[in-house]
């Protein structure tokens, strides 16, 4: 949880808190930012951020991470306008009520013209997104004002420590979301 919290500290004082058994080994855990209430981000156009992850705590033989590690099982990252209209929703919720179980994104209706081919219900396929990538998007592309001067290094470090970063994907500093 600490890397995630460190990443969040780039844009907010709000913290992630786990579900009731969230520090124990086992499955079915979740953590949520700011108790699920909106995190208000400083930007030219103020934005709201919501973030929730579901995870298991499993044993690992990795000496650098062990004896326990967190294995993410799903997430919801929501970026809204200040009046609570969706801009972009990143979802991965296998086992939920949706038949679409792969990671995907929804572009908010507020960003689409009437009659567009894409709607807010469209599942845009995508690779697994980590929280640090969402924060990088907000700072680099949406003019969110970071709270700390070393945000690029912090997000890069956290991204490198994540499963996605550790698999050799592009570094957070150079994410283009192409």
């Amino acid at each position, binding site marked *: 949880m600490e890397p995630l919290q460190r990443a969040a500290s780039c844009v907010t004082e709000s913290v992630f808190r786990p579900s*009731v058994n969230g520090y124990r080994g086992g499955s079915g855990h979740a953590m949520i930012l700011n108790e699920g209430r909106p995190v208000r981000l400083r930007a030219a156009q103020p934005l709201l951020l919501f973030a929730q992850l579901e995870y298991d705590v499993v044993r690992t033989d990795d000496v650098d991470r062990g004896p326990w590690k967190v294995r993410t099982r799903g997430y919801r990252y929501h970026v809204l306008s200040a009046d609570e209209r969706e801009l972009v929703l990143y979802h991965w919720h296998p086992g939920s009520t949706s*038949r679409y179980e792969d990671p995907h994104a929804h572009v908010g209706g507020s960003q689409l013209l009437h009659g567009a081919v894409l709607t807010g219900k469209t599942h845009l396929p995508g690779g697994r997104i980590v929280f640090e990538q969402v924060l990088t998007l907000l700072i680099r592309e949406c003019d969110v004002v970071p709270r700390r001067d070393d945000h690029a290094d912090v997000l890069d470090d956290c991204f490198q420590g994540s499963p996605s970063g550790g698999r050799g994907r592009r570094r957070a500093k150079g994410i283009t979301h192409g």
Partner: protein
Amino acid sequence: MTSAATTHDKISVEEGRALLDEAARHWLGISREEFIAAWDAGHYRDDESLAVQQVAMLLPFGRE
């Protein structure tokens, strides 16, 4: 400069229930109990609307 936070308090069962109820009333205008019943009955199957997902993200905290 802000230092990174470390371990934070778990959300208790009671707190989770209150948060789920708060979200259900804010986003859908229904109570926690009504949301759980509708969710379990499949009324939100394939519903990825913002409002439903905003409430669903609190299910792991306030379902029990």
